[in-house]
């Protein structure tokens, strides 16, 4: 779509964000509530000389995306919980082999087939720990159709800069809601492309990192003869069963995110400065939470909202800082039985209580029910979570 202001849904905005970021390869398998992304790509990709594929399943979708990335393309797949579960092994392969790509998970109600058409936030910890082994991950959680566009661009930039699969963790409400979305002109978009090797094929070591812990990436067909394997590998990319090689590699993969987390981390605050109670909410729920902040303030309760936009890295320092500075309590609202609440609790380090406003999949919290909880906390009527 041409740069302009549109009235579109989150999934369309996500597809357009990918195209704006330079994505030219898309492979997926249909699943509600992500299907509109496939449908948009199927229509748009031949027009932009991109490659679109509907694969036989999600295992193949992410495999094709990783293959395309190694053939030099910016590549993306989109799915929901059941498909995301199928992708876990190759998600780990992409992390291990440092393959830039983007995986969109539009969350719906689980477990299992669950509530296919309705919202939930049950896959949060799966994005962090769903694949086997120790990993460092980056996960964006958009809160509006505009952010579906912006964070898809950002997800590609982070994937390319730090060489990893980045997850855009959306939900059925944000994906299907229609709102104003501004698609900015090309020159206003900051687009990042992967680092290429500066040395000759003879000198190049595919897994020898620069100072930022990210190795430059030579792709297939560029004459560098790169061996890519999910086995533990040395700087040459060759398999190794050496403990030292394993320690060096995995430590670097994790530090690559940790040491650059100031650059990657994103969150938004609303009326936090003088707040005594802080709601932590992300994705669609953050919209009710924002409303709840205003409603509670109208009743004289000093409430603020902290909305993580990256779930990983998580705004741990900021939460610790607020807790240590004397915030009375945190209230975490999420459409699950408690996932991010444990992260918040860990970050407060015992300085104040953390409460959970859980909810089962199907719909988002109403502002009223959150205000109810805020009253309780304010009056000291709630036991600690």
């Amino acid at each position, binding site marked *: 779509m041409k740069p302009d202001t549109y009235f579109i849904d989150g999934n369309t905005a996500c597809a357009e964000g990918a195209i704006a970021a330079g994505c030219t*390869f898309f492979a997926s398998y249909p699943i509600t509530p992500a299907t509109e992304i496939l449908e948009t790509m199927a229509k748009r990709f031949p027009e932009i000389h991109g490659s679109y594929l509907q694969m036989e399943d999600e*295992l*193949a979708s*992410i495999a094709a995306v990783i*293959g395309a990335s190694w053939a030099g*393309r910016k590549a993306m797949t989109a799915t929901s919980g059941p498909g995301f579960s199928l992708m876990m092994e*190759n998600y780990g392969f992409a992390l291990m082999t440092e393959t830039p790509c983007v995986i969109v998970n539009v969350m719906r109600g689980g477990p299992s087939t669950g509530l296919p058409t309705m919202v939930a936030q049950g896959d949060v910890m799966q994005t962090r720990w769903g694949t086997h082994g120790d990993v460092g991950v980056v996960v964006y959680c958009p809160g509006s159709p505009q952010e579906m566009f912006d964070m898809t661009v950002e997800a590609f930039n982070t994937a390319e800069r730090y060489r990893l699969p980045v997850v855009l963790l959306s939900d059925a409400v944000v994906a299907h809601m229609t709102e104003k979305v501004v698609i900015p002109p090309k020159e206003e978009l900051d687009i990042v492309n992967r680092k290429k090797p500066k040395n000759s094929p003879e000198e190049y070591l595919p897994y020898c990192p620069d100072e930022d812990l990210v190795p430059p990436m030579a792709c297939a*067909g560029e004459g560098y003869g790169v061996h890519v394997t999910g086995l533990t590998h040395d700087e040459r990319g*060759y*398999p190794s069963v050496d403990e030292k090689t394993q320690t060096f590699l995995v430590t670097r993969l994790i530090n690559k995110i940790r040491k650059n987390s100031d650059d990657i981390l994103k969150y938004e605050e609303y009326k936090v400065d003088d707040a005594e109670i802080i709601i932590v909410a992300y994705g669609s729920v953050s919209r009710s939470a924002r409303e709840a902040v205003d409603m509670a303030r109208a009743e004289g309760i000093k409430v603020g909202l902290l909305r993580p936009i990256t779930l990983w890295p998580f705004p741990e320092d900021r939460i610790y800082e607020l807790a240590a500075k004397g915030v009375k309590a945190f209230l975490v609202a999420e459409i699950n039985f408690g996932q991010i609440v444990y992260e918040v609790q860990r970050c407060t380090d015992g300085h104040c209580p953390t409460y959970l406003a859980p909810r089962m999949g199907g719909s988002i919290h109403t502002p009223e029910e959150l205000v109810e909880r805020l009253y309780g906390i304010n009056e000291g009527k709630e036991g600690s979570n």
Partner: protein
Amino acid sequence: MAEQMEGDVIGGKKIQEKYLRDEMMPHIFCNGCGLGNVLDYVLWAVEKEGFDMDKTVFLSGIGCSSRIPGYIDADALHTTHGRALGFATGVKMANPELNVIVFTGDGDCIGIGGNHFIHAARRNLNITVIAVNNYIYGMTGGQVAPTTPEGHFGTTAPYGNIESPFDMSKMAIAAGATYVARWPVYRPNQPINSIREGLRNNGFSFIEMMSPCTTAYGRRNKFREIKDLWDFYIDNTILKEEYEMTMKFGSEEEKEAAKDKIIIGELHKISKKPLEDRYRDLVKELME
């Protein structure tokens, strides 16, 4: 180059120096394993076809057979168990200029990766698949595979296999592959020619290599010596042409003897536009 190639095709040495990664040696394959032969044949085919190694990508899944690309000095993706064809689909569609060659084992190809296998064949991507059939899960120590003949033993079939095996080549043909051949590794020339044919075919080429696994399969199935396995292949295979003649003109006994043998040779060859060309045509059409 052509002059150097005259003479003994499996002499091996020179070709290995040209194409293999020195630093990766020694390789992990057992004595008597057929994987070395398979690798040699593919290198000869690539050499004879004059493929540019800078524009050739090797992919594989997981297993002994899937370790082959690790030894070749070219771009390679050693991926996850059963998924190599998914990755290969991405590579080929992303850059159709690249020659794509996939190594896979019988378990990798039609066990865990069966769905990707039939769909890659159906799409008729222009890639070449070298499926090494050792009738067993070799790398993990000899568990029964979906290809293990009935009655044969594996660590997980201690009383003999009671399931019917898959015929990978038949499956490839049924699913839409445009070139299919099957050869035991003890014949060098025919497999090399078939691999060359496969590399030249503008579509999905499937070459099944019957390859002895001495360690995980032979030992448990009374093929203690490599020769026993090779003899088994000789006794139990029949050339396609011979099979067809026997079935047409043979006596009842000859027919009876031939009917359960594994048919080898060039099994299938048709011409059909591959997916990446169809996609290119579609894009062109939309642009007009």
